[in-house]
């Protein structure tokens, strides 16, 4: 186990290094001059501009800039935001909690919906319940979150006037926060549930036809025991890993939902940073998500190995 973890950690470190180089090069190779704003300023002579470029290190070769950036990043200095004029780290750290709450609750919601529906769907294959739930999963799987989000606003905020459609970070108290978070969480959670249900059903169908399940039935165990302890326990192994692997995708969904409901989280920070050409923030968020993806890849692998004794680690 220890050796496996070390090997996995090393591979992840190399992957992250490669990703950081890719992201850095894209930003560095992009057209556009960070000092373009000075071009029209009569007080800034071309000579002064050139000196500024030297001072800021913009004229350095790309690999030197990369090393400088990497050293600062590891020390926790993520640069100054062009928009807020403050440190990028404070800006991002301040926005993480909201995103975590939205992503965490929607993930929980999708698991709570998908597992029972997927399991029942599989044990009652071709029943009316199965037909309806697979159809709904299929519809949900084809529905983009930006559309469901708008429909939810139209129905619950505009027509019924039950829920506020703009997130207000000044709201205090549980009820107010609950009311304004429920739509983003449900939109994201239901989209995740649609994908997960299909997966749970497929995984359950595979185990339910295994010999050991038939054996369990043959020796007269109750159906509940067979389903819950013999079939489901094994069917959940790939499901757990897929949940871990889905987290980056959910982040992508969070970018969209945060934008629709104007939730002040990481996703909307990314969009406004891109719109405002705030390169340090874009870089920090993109690379932060990359770390998240790699981390959850490792978690998925380790979970798989821990849960399934047939998988040898090494």
């Amino acid at each position, binding site marked *: 186990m220890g050796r496996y973890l070390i090997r996995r950690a090393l591979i992840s470190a190399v992957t992250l290094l490669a990703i950081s180089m890719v992201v850095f090069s894209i930003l560095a190779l992009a057209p556009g001059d960070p000092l373009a704003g000075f071009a029209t300023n009569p007080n800034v002579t071309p000579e002064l501009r050139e000196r500024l470029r030297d001072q800021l290190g913009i004229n350095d070769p790309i690999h030197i800039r990369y090393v400088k950036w990497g050293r600062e990043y590891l020390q926790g200095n993520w640069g100054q935001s062009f928009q807020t004029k403050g440190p990028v780290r404070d800006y991002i750290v301040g926005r993480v909690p909201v995103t975590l709450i939205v992503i965490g609750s929607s993930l929980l919601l999708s698991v709570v919906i998908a597992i029972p529906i997927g399991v029942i769907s599989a044990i009652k294959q071709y029943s009316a319940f199965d037909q309806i739930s697979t159809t709904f999963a*299929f519809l949900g799987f084809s529905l983009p979150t930006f559309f469901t989000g708008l*429909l939810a606003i139209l129905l619950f905020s505009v027509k019924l006037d039950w829920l506020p459609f703009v997130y207000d970070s000044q709201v205090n108290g549980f009820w107010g926060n609950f009311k304004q978070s429920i739509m983003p969480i449900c939109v994201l959670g239901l989209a995740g549930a649609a994908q997960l249900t299909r997966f749970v059903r497929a995984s359950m169908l595979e185990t339910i036809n295994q010999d050991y399940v038939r054996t369990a039935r043959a020796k007269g165990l109750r159906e509940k025991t067979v389903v819950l302890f013999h079939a489901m326990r094994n069917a959940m192994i790939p499901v757990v890993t897929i949940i871990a692997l889905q987290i980056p995708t959910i982040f992508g969904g969070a970018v969209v939902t945060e934008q629709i409901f104007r939730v002040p989280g990481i996703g909307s920070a990314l969009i406004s940073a891109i719109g405002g050409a705030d390169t340090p923030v874009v870089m920090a968020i993109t690379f932060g998500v990359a770390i998240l993806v790699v981390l959850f890849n490792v978690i998925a692998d380790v979970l798989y190995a821990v849960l399934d004794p047939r998988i040898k680690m090494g």
Partner: protein
Amino acid sequence: MSEITRDAGANPLGGRGAASVVPSAERDADGLASGKLGRVTRKQRSLWGNAWRQFRHHKLAMAGLVLFVLFVVVTFIGNAIYPREIDAIDFLRTDAPPSLDFPFGTDALGQDMLARALWGGRISIAVGLVAALVSITLGTAIGALAGFFGGPADSLLMRLTDMFLALPQLPLLLMITYLFRESVNRFFEERTGSDILGTFVLIVVVIGALNWMPTARLVRASFLSMKEKEFVEAATSIGATRSALIFKHILPNVMSPIIVAATLGVGAAIITESTLSFLGLGFPSDIPTWGSMLFDAKDRIELAPHEAIIPGMLIFLTVLSINYVGDGLRDALDPRKTQ
């Protein structure tokens, strides 16, 4: 059809005793007498013919196919049949709900929504098709190389695949389109005079370049198992070249999962393009796509809900129909499921 089933039924009977051989032979003679045509069509029953026969039984997949073809035809010729301008601004008829005169209503600038939806659908569908083509071609090429040659080439390409899988997809997609949109657009505008080609190429390439990895893994796995099969050994022994082995012998045998992946990839690419446009980072706002129509409508949903519902429904129905086609293809091309 009935002839085939009869013949298939006769086979096990024929094996049982000499007596049954006679009627079976008679039937054969009958078949000859009734004309060659019937026999020829029977012989041509190919793998793809079988898959099509299977596919036709999948009602929802057929409905999906019909709907998708309809969408393609209507969006590609629609603006010729419905010759309203997509950018005729008229402040006297802004936000008009659907009516006989304007079947899809008008938007905030009084522009005709149907004309815009037709025009935008063409772009959205074209992006989906071409982006899926890019990612499938890339994925197949990389997977085939890795699986066929193995060794260091395989491990190098698979590390590359792993790295791409770990890339933060959406942030990167947003970042690249934002950073390169203008310069790529200018580059293409200077050379071709088209003001959308640049954005189109950029979006298609970036979506394709960030989505080839699952196909590569799939193709590699299929190549690894096919490489060991006897027919490949046989082909090698009669001196088939490497490219003949790859293109003529192995690739046709791994086509079915690639086709399914390609189909589902079209739907996914349409959603990705719409997401980009919805976030304001796809095509410039004077060029309508279904995603950018939603982008324009999203802040005014309480004033004019039809402006959001119509493009949203179009995206949903297109993607749904493609996904059903993919689902039907998966069943039809899966030899284990053939009845």
